[in-house]
Each structure stands twice: as structure tokens, then as C-alpha cells.
């Protein structure tokens, strides 16, 4: 059974369509990465899937249950960690955990062991008696995650779970996600970090309320829209990156160019070969250290898709 399925999921706020006909399928045990720029509708989709926000149109099933018809049944199967910290500031870490455990009907020794294991996996042990409001941002995130997972849900929605937490904690969190997904728990995760996107088993990219790409990271990299048949992607390492970039952008045959650290990622048309490019840069007085062929990164994929979509929208808007 699919873990999450939506058909034509739509949400309007007045005349504004925040989520527009979204079709998604998430298999059990997947870590499903839901990406998109700010305001593209990620949180809105999650809220509809949790039964927090009514859908304007379309349907959604979570663990095979119709969210519209049985939101209460859905709630026992899911965990939700909201983008904004939403635990009780005036309760301690332990009290917050106890409260969420009790809400899900845990009590006695079961509650105790669940809390113990959450404290262990989130490493929040030293802070159990501290008020949640006094925790630092990263520890708040970990506590929120612990509370969302306490009742051992089948499906977990994590809305930007790693925003503001340090690299070590981020690594620990992802290790935990892998471990749990191995046990069949499904994760629906939003993030703005590309390295996290790389780790997802499945990705969907939403832009202006519409899903414009959906597939495994490998499949997305191979999208013809990202690297059209008559183009090639290169990484150029050069001593003066900013000057080189300015030059490249003026040349015909260069579709796009962006700086990545000490190198430039560029998309060239067939007509412009890598050797020709490197010669021309040297003629302009630059030292070209290396030119190598490159697979698009996920960032390339999303930037490319966004720009394309923008052009399409502009073209649509122009005749009006």
C-alpha cells in the first residue's frame, strides 16, 4: 500500500491558489524530499495531508485512509514537526515529552521506555529538566522531532527539520532517518539544503504551487529539460572566477554559468567546444587550470527548472 497518495490536491486562499493540482505518490519506507522556493506551497501541502487545513479540491490518502473522510484515523498514524517551533515554552523538555506521549495514549512503563529511547536518539539527555523556551534553536528542533516521533508513527512529516541546526546534529538526524526508514517508516521532508536533497530516495520540486519535477535524484539529473540533447555541462577551474564569469555570460553559445566555490559550472551549446572555450579564456589572460565534463548537481537541476518555468509563465503572461 502506498504511504501517501494525492490526486489533484489544490488549496486556494481567496483568489490565490497556493497549491495547484498536486499529484504525489510516496511509497512506504521512502525518504521523500519535498523541495521548492519560499512560498511555493510546501507547508500548505503538509498541512492538508495532516488534516490541519481543508483541501479546496482533490483527494489525499495517507496509509490508504481518505484524509477528507477520516482525518481522526489519519492522526493516529502520523507525526508532524511543524516549521515553526510549536511546543510549550513553559514546560520542561521532559514534561513536553510526557505530555505528547499521554496525548497518544501511552502511559506507565511503555511511556517511560519510549521517552528514554527518544532522549537517547536525540541526545537531549542533559537538558531534560530545562524549560523548552530556554533551549537554543537547534535543541528546540531536536525536541520537536523527538515529540513528533514519540508515538512511533508510520509516517512522519518534517517541515524543514534541520533549519538552524549544526552540521553534527544534521548528520545525526539524517542517520536517524535512514535507520528508521530501514524499519519501514516513511518520511516526508522539506528542506532547502541540496546535500539533504541528495540523500532522499525520492524528490519532488514544487514551484508556484505546481509540482514541476518528481523522481529519484538520479532521474532528475538526467532530465532532458536540465541538459538538453545539444548541450554539455562543464566545470571550469580558473584563477579569476568572477572575471571569467562576466566574460562567459557575454559569449554566444553559453547557455548559463554559475560560480561554485573556486570553479564555474556552465552549460555550453554543441557549437562551442570545451577546448575552444578554454583557449578563448586564456587569450583573455586567464589561467585555466582544468575543464571537465560534469553531471548536473541537484542545485543545477532546480535552478534550471525554475528558470524554465519562469520563462514559460512570462510567455503565458505576455499576450494578456
Amino acid at each position, binding site marked *: 500500500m502506498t504511504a501517501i497518495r494525492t490526486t489533484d490536491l489544490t488549496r486556494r486562499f481567496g483568489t490565490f491558489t497556493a497549491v495547484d493540482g498536486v499529484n504525489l505518490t510516496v511509497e512506504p519506507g521512502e525518504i521523500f524530499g519535498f523541495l521548492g522556493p519560499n512560498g511555493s506551497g510546501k507547508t500548505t501541502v503538509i498541512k492538508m495531508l*495532516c*488534516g*490541519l487545513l*481543508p483541501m479546496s479540491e482533490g483527494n489525499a490518502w495517507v496509509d490508504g485512509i481518505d*484524509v*477528507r473522510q477520516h*482525518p*481522526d484515523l489519519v*492522526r*493516529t498514524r*502520523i*507525526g*508532524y514537526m*511543524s516549521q*515553526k*517551533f*510549536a*511546543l*510549550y*515554552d*513553559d*514546560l520542561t523538555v521532559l*514534561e513536553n515529552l*510526557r*505530555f*505528547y506521549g*499521554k*496525548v*497518544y*495514549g501511552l502511559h506507565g512503563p511503555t511511556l517511560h521506555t519510549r521517552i528514554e529511547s527518544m532522549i537517547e536518539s536525540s541526545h537531549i539527555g542533559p537538558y531534560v529538566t530545562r524549560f523548552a523556551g530556554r533551549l537554543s534553536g537547534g535543541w528546540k528542533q531536536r525536541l520537536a522531532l523527538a515529540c513528533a516521533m514519540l508515538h512511533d508513527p508510520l509516517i512522519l512529516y518534517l517541515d524543514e527539520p534541520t533549519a538552524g541546526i549544526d552540521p553534527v546534529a544534521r548528520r545525526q538526524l539524517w542517520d536517524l532517518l535512514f535507520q528508521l526508514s530501514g524499519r519501514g517508516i516513511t518520511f516526508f521532508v522539506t528542506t532547502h539544503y541540496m546535500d539533504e536533497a541528495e540523500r532522499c530516495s525520492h524528490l519532488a520540486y514544487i514551484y508556484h504551487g505546481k509540482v514541476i519535477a518528481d523522481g529519484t535524484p538520479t532521474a532528475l539529473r538526467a532530465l532532458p529539460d536540465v541538459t538538453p540533447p545539444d548541450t554539455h555541462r562543464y566545470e571550469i577551474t580558473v584563477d579569476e572566477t568572477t572575471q571569467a564569469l562576466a566574460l562567459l555570460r557575454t559569449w554566444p553559445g553559453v547557455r548559463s554559468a554559475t560560480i561554485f566555490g573556486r570553479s564555474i559550472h556552465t552549460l555550453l551549446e554543441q557549437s562551442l567546444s570545451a577546448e575552444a572555450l578554454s583557449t578563448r579564456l586564456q587569450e583573455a589572460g586567464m589561467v585555466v587550470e582544468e575543464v571537465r565534463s560534469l553531471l548536473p548537481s541537484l542545485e543545477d537541476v532546480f535552478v534550471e527548472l525554475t528558470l524554465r518555468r519562469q520563462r514559460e509563465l512570462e510567455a503565458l503572461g505576455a499576450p494578456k
Partner: protein
Amino acid sequence: MNPLRGLTAIVYKEFLHARRDSMAIMFSLLMPLIQMTILGAAIDTNVRQIPTVVFDQSGPISGSADSRVLLDRLRNTDTFHIVQLVHSDQELNEALVAGQARVGIKIPYDYARRLLAGDTAQVLVLVDGSDSSVAGQAINVAAQVGLRESLARMIPNARALVVDVRPKMMFNPDSRSPNFFLPGLMAVLLLFVTTMLTAFSVVREKERGTLEQLLVTPVRPLALMLGKITPYFVLGVTEMCAILFFMRYLFQVPIHGSPVLLVALSTCYLFVNLTIGILVSTKANSQTEALQLAMMTVLPSIFLSGYIFPRDNMPLIFQGISYLVPASYMINITRGVILRGADLPELWPDALALFMMGVCILLLAARRFTRMIV
């Protein structure tokens, strides 16, 4: 599914909040007591010693012998306090306009002569009508004094009146005002504490986003609401007992009925107010909004419950509305038990009405809550 799922968890959490916020709780417990003390000490609805000016034309300097008799009688009623003697109509008028006096008495120059001749002597009593209870009292007492004076002169030898009507206040024999208005005030004070606190408690969760997190859990709307109500219910009962204690021992208001019965019946009232608070919170999105909405329910309660104006004197439509105001029933109960010594057989309909109201409002709020979620 169990409609009360999650209730114990919510109660657990709410008591933790209450403990953490003990300052606010203490404050909300003390506020009504302070208000009651101030109002109890300051307000006296019995009208006594109304400042009065007199313009006596009937004699050269201090009137005539007859007019002095009349003025003495007026003074002896304890209703009039003669603060000034004036010597012209204009001064009389000015004293009233300036508010130096509420009553102006003018005894014309022919007062004594007409009495002597057996004619009707006139006395003009000007009453400031801006305070109706003062005006009413002044007119009544003045008319009565006039009547007695007339009778005494018409039947000079009668030792007693032919018909002697003696009114006696049955349930408040000294007609002390605290005895009458404190039982009503009790209902109003409880109204503030309970309605506001519950409304705020839910709205605060909305503002902080914790309500959303709570709503993805399987907690049922009814359980959430009852759980939210519970600590404030306990608070309300405590407050009720404290007010009762203050009233009895600080203001010496005798409780003629059973205090236990009073507390028991008023739990119904607390319940209604708490559910109103919850209903308000389903509508309001910020604490300011909640405050405004709560005020909209509190103010009519004060004016329509009979706390200030007797319900029987209201226009019919407002009498009808007053049946929808929980405080009306509560005031019936408190005045009944405290002043009249009423017992369960007389008061159960009021308590039942309150309880039914509470149940209806709670179900209404639960429905709104459910809709708010999906």
C-alpha cells in the same frame, strides 16, 4: 472512538501551565476580592442625608414657627440634610444647578398665614432628577411628611393614625446595601475570572502555534475543551469560596441558607462561563480579539441580569433576553440562598437551566472546533 481521548493529558498539561504561571493565577484570584472590598466599602445604595437647600419666605429671618416645625420633621426623616438657607429663588436654583444640593425646598411667604386661615398652604420641593433613586426617595419622603403634617392638623386630637401601614423588609431587615448587592456582585466577579481566563488559554495556544501541533494528535475536541476548562473550574470554585468567606466575615452579610448548597449550585454557573470562554476562543485569533469578544458577553450580563436594574422593570424584550443571560440565574441563586435562605426545591430550576446552557454551548464550541480542524 472515545470522545474524551486525550483528556487526562490535557489536564496534566494545563495544571503544569497553571503552576508555572502561579503569579497570574494569584492575581486573578485576588483581583475580584480587591474589587469586592472596594465596592463593598464604597457603595451604599440606601439614600440618606440628601443635601438640601431651603428658601423660607414665611418669616423675616428664619421663617415662621410653622415652617420650622415642617423643616424639623423633614430633617428627622434622616433623608434630608439641610446644608444651606438661601434668600432668593435665584440662589435656590443656582445651588441645585451647581450640584451643591439635590433638593430645594421653598416655603412661600404666606405659608403660616394660610395654615392659620385653614387654607391650603403650598410647599415647593424641587428635586434633581439626575439620579433616579435619590429623586424617588426625596419625593416619597417629602410627600409622606406633607401628608402626616396635613393629617395632624386636620385631626388635631388623634393619637394614632386610622390606618397605619408599616412596611418591613423581610430578608434584609436592616436594609444594608452590602447584603443586597454583594450576592449579585459575586456573580459578576466570577464571570470575569472564568470567561476571560479560558478564552485566553486557548487563544494563547493559537498565537504560539501550539494549538496546531495539538490538533494533529488524536486528541478529541471535547477532551481538549474539557481539559482546558478543568483548571479554571477549580480556580473558579476556589474563588467562589473566597468571595463567600469575605462577604460573610468582612462585610458581615449573613448567609441564611446553606453555603455548601450555594457553592454546589454555582458550579453550574462556573461551567457555563467556562464554556462561553471556550466558544469565544474558537472565534478569536488574538488575545485582544478575545478580550473584546468576552467583554461583549460580560457587559450585557451585568446590565441584563438584574444585578443593577431589576429584571421586572425591564421592557418585555429585554426581560426575554435576560433569560438567556446566565448571570440572571446565578443572581437568583445567590440572592435566594444568602438573603432568603432558599433551598434546593426552589433553586434547582435555575441550576438546571445553567447546566443545560453549558452543555449546549460546549457542544456548539466542539462543533466549531471540529470545523476549524478539517
